[in-house]
């Protein structure tokens, strides 16, 4: 019996509820479904977890408080003074990516963050938002961000474009990092799973590796959410303080 291994099959988006508005395909897809589940779960965790407001937190309240304190602490150390204003945004971002990444590890679910358009949308929101915040806080002084201090004027001709370029690259690195990690991880899982299914008894070997990779993927899922959030904090810090 030949088993066809299609490791990229899992990333296919297929509509669950087809909706077409004026030639525009806005169908409710499996990707949208997983996003909805992630949002509902986060909301449930935060709302139900903190409902009792016990002085001695129960299990769920502990989880809610821990995630709150984790992000608050991250903003405090990385975005510095004035960063706490943006706590709701960073917290939402972190929790959404974290839950999307973790939910992707559930068998037969869908890896939302393995779609570049999803991660890029998140990253471009961060990028545009941070730029606007910087311009609001500093006006044209924000452009000082691109002018290194203590450099001969002649070199500025070369350095300012480089600074500008390295600033504009941010949304790309931010989105590609998350997307590539998720895509690679899930593809690898599927390939090894396919091996295990197709070589019979010896499949126990790739199966074992697969299990280890699942553990690695759990780490990557948490770490990528952390990296995304921490970079958002650092970018915010740039916009707020201009260093």
């Amino acid at each position, binding site marked *: 019996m030949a088993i066809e291994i299609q490791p990229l099959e899992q990333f296919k988006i297929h509509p669950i509820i087809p909706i077409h508005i004026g030639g525009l395909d806005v169908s409710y897809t499996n990707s949208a479904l997983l996003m909805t589940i992630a949002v509902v779960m986060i909301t449930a965790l935060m709302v139900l977890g903190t409902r009792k407001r016990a002085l*001695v937190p129960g299990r769920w309240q502990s989880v809610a408080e821990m995630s709150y304190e984790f992000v608050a602490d991250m903003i405090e150390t990385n975005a510095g003074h004035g960063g706490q204003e943006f706590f709701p945004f960073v917290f939402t971002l972190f929790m959404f990516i974290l839950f999307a990444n973790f939910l992707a590890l559930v068998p037969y679910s869908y890896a939302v963050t393995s779609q570049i358009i999803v991660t890029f949308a998140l990253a471009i929101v961060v990028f545009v938002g941070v730029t606007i915040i910087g311009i609001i806080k500093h006006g044209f002084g924000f452009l000082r961000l691109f002018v*290194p201090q203590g450099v001969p004027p002649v070199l500025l001709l070369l350095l300012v474009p480089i*600074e*500008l370029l390295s600033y504009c*690259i941010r949304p790309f*690195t931010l989105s590609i990092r998350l997307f590539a990690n998720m895509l690679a991880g899930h593809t690898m899982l599927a390939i090894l799973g396919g091996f295990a299914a197709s070589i019979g008894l010896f499949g126990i070997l790739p199966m074992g590796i697969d299990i280890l990779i699942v553990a690695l993927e759990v780490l990557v899922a948490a770490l990528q959410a952390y990296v995304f959030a921490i970079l958002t904090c*650092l970018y915010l810090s740039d916009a707020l303080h201009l260093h």
Partner: protein
Amino acid sequence: MSESTPPDPLSRLGQEIDKARAGRVRRQPPVADRSTLQRGLSLGFRIGIELVVAVVVATGIGWAIDRWLGTRPWGMIVLFFMGVAAGMLNVYRAVTGVSGPVGFRPPAESSTGAKGWDDEDC
């Protein structure tokens, strides 16, 4: 009710928390170790992709400029090297803790603590 418990359960809890906190001070080093590991891992994931993306994106922009202005191949060549420079700059700054494309030297009284660039010669 044989032992002499404080009448207020809250103050008893407070005492217990204090005792637990006192016990936690001794466990401080492992906690710090874990955060170093976490920081190292996140840094590794960060810079791994920084250089590649910078070069690819910059070359792509150069290609687009060439198509638009018909200056093939100069835009692509120039932007390629600028991409390399920008990518290296980003990696360098990520590693030295001077994050983001800003002036080379942050002011000493910068409020962003815990980054350790005091002894950094950047």
